[in-house]
């Protein structure tokens, strides 16, 4: 479904500088916070709720891998691994995360934990922050619930050791920030559904929130989204993007949007799943956070399949999508098993589909990805969108 617009410059509302800079330089704001005495906890993955950190007066920094950065240190140990794993290991070994009180790895990234822990054991990882494995299992059943409650308790104890216990009003403050964050990100999501923001910009705006202090981020985001209220809706081929890994790099969005389409949603906590749901009010703060974590869990390793695909099915059924783009590189070991059914379901709803498989960590791969998107969307395109 296309939204008509008379404005050829729609979608070009520039991203606020602070948000753009935070996305591009993911460590800068956290370093500043550290310099001002605010403890920073670095995290890989989406099962450490930010409120656990905010409640203790610290800053969470959700680290993202970068396919453009060479990985010589990581290559010494795990050269045959995916660029995503090598990139995180490189970042950790480079010493750039040394200012963090702790680096928390979550399920799905446990091999980064194993590899870094071994490098540290060998005495070759002196710049590494303290490592912690938070093994929250993204499976919705009673056994996992019990296990996860124990893991969440252990995470709280670890954070108490790393940055100190939460002050008496810590959870109240964290909860208020969480409610405000939900409202702000939900508003952004609504603007995307209305076609008032380019997907690659939305991605950066969301990603900035994982690298900025929460109050600063919310102020910037709220201000930016208020400017988008005046933007005209964009008339383009509307795309739902489903990927084998987190959409924490903008290349796929940019390739699709440069080809003339508009990414309006993606099944990723770096995208449309960022807002999640609102915290419950009928229980204590920590319980509300744990319940929301379970309710909103997303990613390709969520089980059972019905839980993993619920959001996608609901999103496809909204009938405002023209094309579902799948991104499944050859290094994928997981999402490819879901692909045939998801593709068939999309097509049964009358949606077009496109499969992208190119590597993001090579110039050839990115160029090929752009060509594939261009070929697919060219005939529908009226011009370039991505900046």
């Amino acid at each position, binding site marked *: 479904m296309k939204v008509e617009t008379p404005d050829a410059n729609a979608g070009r509302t520039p991203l606020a500088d602070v948000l753009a800079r935070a996305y591009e330089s993911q460590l800068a704001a956290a370093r500043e916070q550290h310099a001002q005495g605010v403890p920073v906890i670095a995290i890989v993955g989406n099962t450490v709720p930010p409120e656990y950190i905010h409640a203790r007066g610290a800053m969470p920094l959700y680290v993202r891998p970068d396919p453009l950065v060479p990985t010589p240190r990581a290559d010494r*140990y*795990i*050269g*045959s*691994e995916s660029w995503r794993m090598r990139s995180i290991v490189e970042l950790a070994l480079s010493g750039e995360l040394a200012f963090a009180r702790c680096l928390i790895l979550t*399920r799905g990234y*446990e*091999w980064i*934990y*194993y*590899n870094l*822990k*071994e490098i540290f*054991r060998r005495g070759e990882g002196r710049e590494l922050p303290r490592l912690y*494995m938070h*093994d929250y*299992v993204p*499976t919705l*059943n*009673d*056994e*996992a619930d*019990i*296990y996860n409650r*124990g893991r969440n308790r252990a995470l709280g104890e670890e954070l108490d050791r790393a940055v100190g216990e939460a002050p008496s009003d810590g959870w109240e403050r964290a909860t208020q920030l969480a409610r405000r964050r939900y409202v702000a990100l939900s508003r952004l999501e609504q603007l995307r559904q209305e076609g008032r923001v380019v997907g690659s910009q939305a991605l950066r705006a969301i990603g900035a929130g994982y690298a900025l202090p929460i109050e600063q981020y919310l102020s910037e985001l709220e201000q930016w989204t208020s400017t988008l209220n005046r933007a005209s809706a964009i008339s383009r081929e509307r795309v739902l993007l489903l990927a084998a890994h987190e959409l924490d790099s903008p290349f796929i969005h940019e390739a699709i949007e440069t080809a003339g389409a508009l990414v309006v949603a993606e099944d990723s906590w770096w995208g449309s799943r960022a807002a999640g749901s609102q915290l419950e009010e009928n229980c204590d703060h920590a319980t509300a956070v744990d319940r929301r974590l379970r309710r909103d869990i997303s990613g390709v*390793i969520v*089980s*059972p*399949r019905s839980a993993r695909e619920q959001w996608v099915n609901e999103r496809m059924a909204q009938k405002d999508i023209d094309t579902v783009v799948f991104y*499944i590189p*050859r*290094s*994928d*070991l*997981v999402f*490819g*098993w879901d*692909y*045939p*059914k998801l*593709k068939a379901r999309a097509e049964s709803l009358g949606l077009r589909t496109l499969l992208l*498989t190119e590597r993001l960590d090579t110039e050839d791969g990115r160029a090929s990805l752009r060509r594939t998107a261009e070929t697919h969307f060219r005939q529908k395109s009226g011009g370039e969108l991505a900046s």
Partner: protein
Amino acid sequence: MSEEVQSARAKHQASKQLEVSHTLRAHHRAWFEELQRRAADGQPYVICHPTTPHEIFEALDIPYVVDAWYAGIVAARRQSKHYSDVLSAHGYHRGLRRYNSLGYGVVLDPNHPDKPWGGLPKAAGIVSWNSEGGALELAEHWNVPFIGLDQPACRVMHPNWWDMHRWNWEDFDESYRIDFMESQFRRVVAFAERLAGRRMDYERLAAVVDRVNEQEMYFDRIRSILATAPKLPVRLGEVMSQTMGIQWHRGSEWGLKQARAFYEEVKARADAGKWVCPNEKYRFMYVGSGLWQKLEFFNSFEESHGVVFVRSNYLSIASDGYLRFGATNPLRALASRYSILALQMWIPPMGGAWAVHEARTHRVNASVNLDRKGRGVTFVTRALEEAGIPVLDIEADPVDANAWNDDRIRSQVIEFIEERVARAGE
């Protein structure tokens, strides 16, 4: 069946030296025929991942097929390329692991005239890991229950884990991890009870677990023979096939009997000085998943270079990874075993420490490692190299013949032998 496939199968059969290889094959044939009969009668059987608690089904007399080892049979019958292509044709890209999923490919091609052991009849359910692709898809294809399990991540890695597993498993595997596995296994028990129509007899389960321990001790003794005999008495391909075949039926009376016969035959060969390669010059170990599509690879350099492969993960993990003594609750012993099974072969430093220990006890000159997309293999390679053991990492899929280039790999191995191993021995 193509002439090429027929010839490869005949060559594979001819390379077998052990009587137990023939009894195993005969047992498998009869067992599958019985399974097909049972399934046709509407009696339940299940499909399991190799590292899930088969013992629960054994204790309730429910037969099970192990998906990865069925895939091994597909590969050994030179049909992996075809069934891998079937999966690809259904949209499952080639980078996805075929190791556990070739059976799904067999099911997706119902009209194939030569399905391994008659193909897979519809199972009553599938038990696997949530992280393992192909199992859920097969369950959905058949519209049968899928029991998805989760292995907890490891936190503490004791390098000498094989010393702790047998008796100190509660310490090693950590109680909270075992608790999680045990709670999931109670769900498996409930599923098995529904299929069997009766409650679990935990004393019977304990007897099954005891039989597994006894069986694995035979494997332990066989490993000692292979490690300490003057020369190699039995080919690695046969050891791997035999170990896998018996492990498939672990805990059964047949499994124990076959393990004993296997041990006795290996011991007799060693006592009689019957060596695989009388001109044995170099002893190699193999690190990786079962190379079921090309087991004769392990014999390929005997005549030309005096190379024998003396050790793989299969026999060694059977004793070091499976044994759990001193349990008062058999389900907890199983929970401990499967909370870590297979991971300890790869997670550093456990994988590397074990590989070095095994290399030393087996007196190996070199190792050939199958690079499985890197998960832990590189640290195993590093540990071996640092211990002075040359390593050749080969890129191949253990079951998918599409990914095997015989000429390239053969020349890599020969160059490795002549350039690195021979020179290291000078």
